[in-house]
């Protein structure tokens, strides 16, 4: 195991985040505050809570995931896209690193940053609502799993992308809509049929509901199913990364 190599990539990526630390941290705080003003105070006061949970508290897990998805994808994809773009990828390709080691460095760093941002949002949310997390340890583990999966997904995206606009298009056209439609801000039970059934085909709905379960001990679909879908997604992304490295796709000619 080339631990020094993993550490080198991890540090490099963290240093890159460090250069933009204030915007990185201020953005989620401001966004969360805006969401709370709009959904929590303005609209939320008109909404009845869901199963005894206040609407403001109900949206916290979805709000965290909304940011986590885009941050994990963005950071991991940019991490591997930049060396491709500047040409410094030669060093990575000629280094004594296995695919797993390379991925650990990049995905680990992207996941770390996302976890920090998730915690900042979580802390900000406390300013607006009363929050009691039912299963704190599970919540952290679940968050870690989701963060790592999306970072893996972002890593694949970064290898696939041939330009900056391609980096942005998938999060914008696929992930964000699926998140909004996956019940980030509402319970699936409020949806009329057939929309409720349609939503059950949206994998992101399971990620959100699973995460919400760790907060409130209840969700629209069973927690076990949510965990299964989340693990499935993680496994799929991991398989994609391994295949990419094995074939050298878009990395080696």
């Amino acid at each position, binding site marked *: 195991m*080339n631990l*020094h*190599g993993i*550490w*080198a*990539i991890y*540090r*490099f990526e963290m*240093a*890159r985040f460090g*250069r933009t630390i204030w915007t990185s941290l201020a953005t989620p705080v401001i966004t969360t505050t805006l969401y709370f003003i709009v959904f929590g105070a303005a609209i939320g006061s008109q909404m009845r809570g869901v199963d005894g949970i206040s609407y403001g508290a109900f949206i916290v897990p979805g709000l965290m995931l909304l940011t986590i998805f885009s941050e994990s994808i963005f950071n991991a994809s940019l991490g591997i896209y930049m060396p491709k773009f*500047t*040409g*410094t990828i*030669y*060093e*990575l*390709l*000629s*280094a*004594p*690193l*296995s695919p797993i080691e390379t991925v650990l460095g990049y995905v680990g760093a992207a996941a770390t940053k996302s976890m920090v941002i998730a915690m900042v949002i979580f802390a900000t949310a406390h300013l607006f609502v009363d929050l009691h997390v039912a299963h704190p340890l599970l919540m952290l583990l679940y968050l870690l799993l989701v963060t790592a999966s999306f970072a893996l997904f972002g890593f694949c995206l970064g290898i696939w992308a041939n330009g900056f606009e391609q980096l942005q298009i998938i999060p914008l056209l696929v992930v964000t809509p699926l998140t909004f439609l996956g019940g980030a801000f509402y319970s699936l039970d409020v949806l009329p049929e057939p929309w409720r059934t349609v939503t059950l085909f949206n994998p992101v709905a399971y990620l959100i509901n699973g995460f919400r379960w760790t907060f409130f001990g209840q969700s629209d679909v069973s927690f076990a199913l949510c965990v299964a879908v989340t693990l499935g997604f993680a496994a799929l992304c991991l398989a994609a990364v391994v295949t990419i490295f094995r074939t*050298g796709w878009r990395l*080696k*000619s």
Partner: protein
Amino acid sequence: MPEPILTVAGVSKTYKNGPTALGTVDLTVNRGEIFALLGPNGAGKTTLISIICGIVTPSAGTVTVAGHDVTRDYKAARRAIGLVPQELATDQFESVLATVTFSRRLFGRSGHSDYIEQVLRDLSLWEKRHSKIKDLSGGMKRRVLIAKALAHEPQILFLDEPTAGVDVALRRDMWKLVHRLREQGATIILTTHYIEEAEEMADRVGVITGGKLLLVEEKNALMAKLGKRQMDLTLVEPMTAIPAALSDWPLTLEDEGHTLRYIFDAKAEDTGIPRLLERLAQQHIAFRDLETRKSSLEDIFVDLVGERA
């Protein structure tokens, strides 16, 4: 007994939707050697180096570095290799020290080492260690790339056109550095377009063109072959045969007897030219014009390809 550190066996490469960049190449480089790959643009030099370093997948063949197969045992093989690429690709926002430390770690070594300081001092980069790479000149950036390649103490160093876009002073420095590295026991493989550079730096030279390694020779043997000059005398009266009085020189008649051609060794103490001119005067052989030129890289390739054919 020379010990091979690099063995390339039957390696070829055809890029997807591209040309056959490399025919079948076989090559052995010994430990402690300075080996130059000499060839024109598009010859396949970078392709060959990239295959050895694991950046390009070969279409066929095997490569062994320091006894390790570069595909099966890639970690051990790559730890032995340092690569300075042809293109100046750097992380603009990193400092010199940070980027060199990064390279050392990436290759599996602890980042804390006096060795990094020594490398930076050798390359006159120590004063600039805290500068951002984007603030350095092009020549300095190339030194940073060399420092990165040396950071993990490789046994074999690849320099892909180390002196492209480098001024004369830095070029001299580079040549000195290469020799110093060899004294420290490193093996160095470099590519170049210039015969002079191959001559200045290398122990052995491989001539490559069109993806084919045409020949590999000791530098001195090659220079004897390549370091030829040619003198053409345009005669006033065309000749049909070379007079017996001129038989001391290896002369040929060209251009239907209008040109007397003398090929000589530019490095020889006595080129034989003054005596030849004297003899011509004695024989009352008049010439209108005299032209000498050095055989260019292109001539040499044409010669070599001709020899092979």
